[in-house]
């Protein structure tokens, strides 16, 4: 029996944390490990709640005993009883609890992460994510070959998503709290993770390993959608850009943007920065730092360093406002 797939267990797993969280300050959020929407995250959230309750009980017992010993006891303990208390309370009972907990966790482990290997054999959606200071290059496998995008991951609900993860510059860490725990992206090494979203929604992923000046501003959006919708979105993503002519594109090419950015279907083929073919369809820009609206796009074009310190993109403050506006509008039109 796998511990993860029983329907009643899953239901119990969902209600228990929820009840607890409502009682506390609330656990919800687009980036919360306690508001799980995926296979691994759910198991771990369950593990957390069990351990928290157990831990709270242990803490209360120890502190109650200490307070009693310090201030309220009526008579003193003999040396022998004290030794026995240490043996049982300090050694034997903790050993048993820890052994049980360890065995449980070890039993869970092969079912969480070696699951990846099984997934590679069985198929599902595949892709490759590269973390670069300070954004995410996403290359999903499609029927017509890999399709590059950036800072947005679109996954089908209920299906496996197998990702290989690398980094060309420094160590980053790939983390979508609502779906699964994190795994580092280390130069020279290739790591893998398998995700499965069980609930449609929009979640947030972040870089979890300090990676430089704007580490704090390196996030991405995860959209979990039903499989049919996913197929449609993936097909749309694979198409060339919606706008392949006009003043905006002319400026884009003339001002040197194409040296770093690609827009499929045009002459812009730069590979240094994010692919902008469908940048207009993404909910955010600058790795989930700003909303994708005209004002933010203009702001970022003018002085990216003010938004994201240390970013590699130069500022275009020297362009007349009208040109900035045209460029920003053009990018917004790249749906």
């Amino acid at each position, binding site marked *: 029996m796998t511990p993860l797939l029983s329907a009643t267990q899953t239901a119990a797993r969902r209600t228990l944390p929820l009840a607890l969280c409502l009682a506390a300050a*609330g656990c919800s*959020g*687009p*980036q919360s*490990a306690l508001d799980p929407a995926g296979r*691994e*995250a759910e198991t*771990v959230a369950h*593990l*957390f709640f069990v351990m928290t309750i157990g831990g709270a009980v*242990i*803490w209360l017992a*120890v*502190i109650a005993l*200490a307070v009693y*010993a*310090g201030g309220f006891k009526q008579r*003193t*303990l*003999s*040396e022998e*009883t*004290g030794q026995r*208390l*240490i043996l049982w*309370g*300090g*050694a034997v009972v*903790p050993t048993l609890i*820890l*052994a049980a*907990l*360890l065995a449980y*966790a*070890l039993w869970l*482990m*092969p079912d*969480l992460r070696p699951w990846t290997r099984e997934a590679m054999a069985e198929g599902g959606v595949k892709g490759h994510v590269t973390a670069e200071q300070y954004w995410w290059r996403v290359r999903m496998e499609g029927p017509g070959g890999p399709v590059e995008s950036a800072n947005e991951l679109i996954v089908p609900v209920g299906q496996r998503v197998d990702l290989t993860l690398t980094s060309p510059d*420094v*160590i980053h860490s790939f983390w979508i*709290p609502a779906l699964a*725990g*994190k*795994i*580092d992206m*280390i*130069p*020279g*090494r290739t*790591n*893998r993770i398998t995700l499965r979203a069980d609930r449609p929604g929009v979640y*947030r992923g*972040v870089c979890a*390993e*300090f*990676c430089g*000046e704007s*580490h*704090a501003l390196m996030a991405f959006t995860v959209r979990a959608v039903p499989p049919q919708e996913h197929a449609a979105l993936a097909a749309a993503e694979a198409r060339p850009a919606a706008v392949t002519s006009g003043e905006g594109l002319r400026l884009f090419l003339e001002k040197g943007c194409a040296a770093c950015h690609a827009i499929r279907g045009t002459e812009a083929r730069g590979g240094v920065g994010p692919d902008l073919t469908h940048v207009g369809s993404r909910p955010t820009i600058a790795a989930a730092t700003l909303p994708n609206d005209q004002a933010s796009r203009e702001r970022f074009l003018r002085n990216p360093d003010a938004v994201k310190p*240390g970013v590699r993109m130069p500022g275009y403050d020297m362009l007349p406002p009208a040109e900035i506006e045209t460029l920003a509008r053009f990018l917004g039109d790249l749906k």
Partner: protein
Amino acid sequence: MTAPTSDIEARPTLPERDSPADLERRRTQEVRLRKAWETPSGWHYWTAVNNTEVGVWYTATAFAFMLFAGVLALIMRAQLAVPENDLVSADFYNQAFTLHGTVMMFLFSVPIFEAVAIVILPQMLGARDLPFPRLSAFGFWSFVLGGVFVCGSIFFNAAPNTGWFMYPPLATDEKQSGIGADIWLLGLSFIEVASIAAAVELIVGTLKCRPPGMRINLIPLFAWYILIVAGMILFAFPPLIAGDILFEMERMFDWPFFDPERRGDPLLWQHLFWIFGHPEVYIVFLPAIALIAMIVPTFAQRPIVGYSWIVLAAVGTGFLSFGLWVHHMFATGLPTISLAFFSAASEAVVIPTGVQIFVFIATLLAGRVIFAVPMLFATGGLAIFVIGGLTGVMVALAPFDWQAHDTYFVVAHLHYVLIGGMLFPITAGIYYFYPLVSGKMLSMRLGKIGFWLMFVGFNVGFLPMHLTGLRGMPRRVFTYADGLGWDWLNLVSTVGAFIFAAGVLVVVYDVVRPKGREPYAARNPWNAGTLEWLIGMPGESWGVRSVPFIKSRYPLWDQPDLIRDVDEGRGLLPDAEEGKRETLVTSVLDAEPIQCLRVPGNAVVPMVAAFTLGGVFIAATFKLWITTLVFCVAFLAALIYWLWTGTSVIPEKTEKHVGHGLVLPIYRSGPASIGWWAMFITMVGDATAFASLVFGYFFYWTIHADFVPEGAGPGVLWPMVAMGLLVAAWAATLAARRLNTAGRAGAVRLSLAVATVLTVAGGAAGLWGPWTTNLDPTSDVYPAIVWILVIWAVVHAGVAVIMLLYCLARSLAGRLTREWDIDMANVALYWHFMAITAVVTFGVVGLFPVVG
């Protein structure tokens, strides 16, 4: 013990108690003792080396660094109070959190334990001082200089900014990490050297400088912990030093140890860093718990229940803590089974920790508890620490850690552990031991106010962080977006942090406020049972008036006449007839007196040595190579002057009457001498660093299918020649030692000269191998690691040459003879390690490519 060839008249028995003759004896003894142990005044005050001075400076400096790092923390909390705040820049924030972690760990947590131990360990052991007072002073001055250098960098916007664990490639990238990373590496390497010096001092102090009768089953629990922790330092710090060497070679000379493009691997740094980093948590935690183990019996007014259990816990933790390091690397994608081993060991280490807590609870249950401020801090700390321990159990499980790792959950966890397990116990210790240092008590009222502010502020500040982290907030972010559910949690944390800081300020005020008009505390104000409370209020710089015979774990409770005997000079060493500073050396298990040790007095040379060594590191940071070289030479000169004038001093007589009819030798060499022990312990640390480099070699072999490129390598011939020559030099050194025992000075000198020549030749042959085969260390990781191993061995051969020449010079100067042979014995001991280093190095670089 050597056969007595005494030239001393047997002492007359002591005069009758309180007779005029007795009073006169006591008075003259006190005058002489006071003069021998006098603290210098004026500017010379800073040349003091006595543990009471150095320890207090050390403690105060560590606290100053703590307050500095605390201010950085408050700046960070202010920045995070609201989302999208722009109080400080991203770069400043990154410098602030890097420096906060670095300073708290390297300049506060570890040094404070050394500092407190330097102050109280000799008192607890009824010793006049630690065995190597000048080494303590050297460590202190190194610490001050290195600490100021590292902290000061932030005022020049040059502080390290890549996090306190300095992961490459970010931290090896000169453009992104700037000079800050060099400051971190070199500044801290310097301080690590000081920590190892302290470890040597404390191990020898605990094992060899106890009062007679204090058998190993009677030593204060604090001493047990210090022994274990000092041993841990010996195995934990050297891997970091090895890592620092690789790191700095990459930064300065582009050797690709962590660069994947040239087959290096960033993960090797993580291994080396955390092999140090996790034991370090226990290096910080155990001494603080040791303070609680002294405080609890005092306030329960009974001996500890479960003394043996504490020993179990301390030793057990010491070992297990070395099997945890990969739990900082659970998210790096290592094979599941590797993670699982470290999960398992991380759960196992909880057992001894639980034992310690139950020992305290059992002792409280078995005693009649007096609740004073030290107990308040101790129990408050315990309540906090247990939460940290329980969250530690959680993050030790890899699946949970995949979520919690590098989030505010971990920030909360580590602060619960360190503040509950270290800062609160230290504060308890300050309130408890303050009278030992100043003779005055701290204010109980301010203590209570400080405690409650700290306790409430801490929990308000850090408890919400568990939730913040699991709701997705990563650590080390200078800002965060609105609407992720973190706003209120962060605001509450900031408020809590400032309340906590207010509590710390109250305690600091209590410590530094002038107490001139307050009366001195009563002697042994807490009615404690251990020896440090023998001290008068205020104490004398000689420490203990005379060294008592010990029969109990709590001698002040169980030996009614003890204080009087000590005060009246009826213990051992009641006098300083020759005006020398003396303390007792005893055997390890049963504390039988074996030597009257003369400890060196005040001197400026430890400070000079520390500052010149600091100059080496600082000049190297700025790549001022000529200045570096000048400082190197100056340091070497200072060191040799120090050794020549201050160590293995030939006494004017072989033996001395120390009281109670006991005659002890003054000069001992070989395994019976403390200098031999210091050499042995230092070399164990040195061997650990070497083992870490060898680990690096095999680490690369593990991850690369073709680690040794076809046809590359230093060849077999020259490494074997080097090995042979160095082993021959080792044999020549041993011959010199043997000839010295036989008293054949001429042959000794010849042997030493031959050994020197062989060593020089061996070193040259070692370098010649990789040189003639054109191994370019910047081209690939294989030549780089080969070169590092060879350089390590050759540098050690260089040190060996200096030692051999030193012995030769001592022999020519008549200071190394058959009878006075400490130097020869210690150098021979060094050579055992040197021989192992040579055989392993040249065996690995020469033969492994053939075999593997």
